[in-house]
């Protein structure tokens, strides 16, 4: 499909809905192996994003990503704030001033976001962080002729896989072996991020 700023806004609003719906679940996951605020942090961020959407309309996806990046950076806090925020910021650069994005261009933007997360967080695949969703997912789907159902399923599976990982980065790392057996909260919110993207693509594509 061809993604306008409005399509992207639709996606991110769905993401916000899902965050609100899974807020307690994300917080519970973070209580198990972190500090119990991930759902709260993300909910604060997407609530502020929705306010922004109510107040402003955006001409281009790039403009939208940039505004959302500022909200995430300024409102989420914790580890997830700078990570999601930096990702959005780099997605904005990648999207540039184009009025619309093809699937390929959107996936390229997400790849730029992925790189930002890797750089900010200095985590690699297998360390039980959101990187474990972002990196393999965007490796598998390069944007040409995306099967959005498969994309969505893959995000879900990648999230589930973090359960058996032994955390090496983020707060869960402090628990050592006790981190095994719980899904990483940031991977769970990232799965929602990609699944709402896929849902929008299916709905509008």
């Amino acid at each position, binding site marked *: 499909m061809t993604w306008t700023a409005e399509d992207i806004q639709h996606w991110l609003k769905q993401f916000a809905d899902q965050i609100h719906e899974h807020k307690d679940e994300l*917080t519970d996951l973070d*209580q198990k*192996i*972190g*500090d*119990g*605020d991930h759902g*709260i*942090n993300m909910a*604060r961020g997407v609530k502020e994003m929705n306010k922004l959407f109510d107040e402003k309309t955006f001409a281009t996806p790039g403009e939208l990503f940039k505004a959302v990046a500022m909200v995430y*950076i*300024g*409102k*989420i*806090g*914790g*580890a*997830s*704030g*700078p*990570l999601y925020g930096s990702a959005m910021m780099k997605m904005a650069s990648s999207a540039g001033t184009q009025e619309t994005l093809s699937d390929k261009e959107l996936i390229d933007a997400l790849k730029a976001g992925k790189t930002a997360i890797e750089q*900010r*967080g*200095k985590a690699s695949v297998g360390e039980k962080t959101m990187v474990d969703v972002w990196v393999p997912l965007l490796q598998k789907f390069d944007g040409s002729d995306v099967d959005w159902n498969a994309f969505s399923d893959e995000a879900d599976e990648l999230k589930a896989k973090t359960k058996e990982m032994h955390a*090496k*980065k*983020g*707060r869960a*790392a*402090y*628990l*050592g072996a*006790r981190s095994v057996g719980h899904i990483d909260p940031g991977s769970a919110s990232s799965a929602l991020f990609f699944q709402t993207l896929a849902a929008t693509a299916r709905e509008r594509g």
Partner: protein
Amino acid sequence: MKKLMNDVDQIVDEMLNGMVAAHPQALKRVDGTTVVVRKDAPVNGKVGVVSGGGSGHEPAHGGFVGKGMLDGAIAGEVFTSPTPDQVFEAIKAVDGGAGVLLVIKNYTGDVMNFEMAGEMAEAEGISVKQVVVNDDVAVEDSSFTSGRRGIAGTIFVHKIAGAAAEDGKSLDEVQQIAEGVIKNVKSMGMSLHPCTVPAAGKPGFELDDNEMEIGTGIHGEPGTERTALKPAKEIAQILFDKIHEDMKLESGEEIAVMINGLGATPLMELYVMNHTVADILKQHGLHVTETIVGEYMTSLEMAGASLSILRLDETRKKYLAAEADTTAFKR
């Protein structure tokens, strides 16, 4: 959840208001932020020392703002690192022209947010340096992970870096002295009861009546190990041994000690711990120059304590003993 509070969403804001209302001669808020600074900030020509982190660690960090310690503190949401814009506001508010040192506790979120703030400040021409405190020996020190957490030992960094800045040291010197503290301070904590993040509404973990957690951090998380409840003597020994294993303290060395309560620990119990710890330190021939007992780096209403040991040299000894006039720490 039972807390003295009004609106969960306003708890940090109301706390900061209550803090500044209690100490109007000492502190002021930077309008529209969650930053608290010395009433006389920025102090012209002095290096500014800034720290902060999530809320819920009170008196850290606002309680250490004042002459001889921090110039400013940023309060995030409960247990959530503050955002870069807030940290940036603090940097701007305390910069007296000699640059600003950021004292960061080693959590991924804190490091990233403070770093981003430092980048913003550098872009505006303010010199910013940072140190990252990682005193918690409960956590493995490995180059494959993000490393050890910063816990109660951070107070020693605030105190000594703050005194050095007050003494007119340059930004590089203050940073170097702070690094010296960080290299020489180790801590370990344990907990008897969990705590409840206000917005979460339920405790972070559950403990039976005969259980405790060893190696607990300051964010209400479980520790590295769960064991049966033990007498203070054995607990003190566990904490000391782990610290000693790392620091390799030698008989005759001068040290400073902190017995820190996690938020709901009666002072009686902290003094009992100190009695026990003092015995152990004596057995090892260590000279304790300064002992600090109380609640300094807390985890909401968590019950438990941490032990911190700082190896002293002349510089650290001098700046630890130097004057400090903050609401939670006076010398």
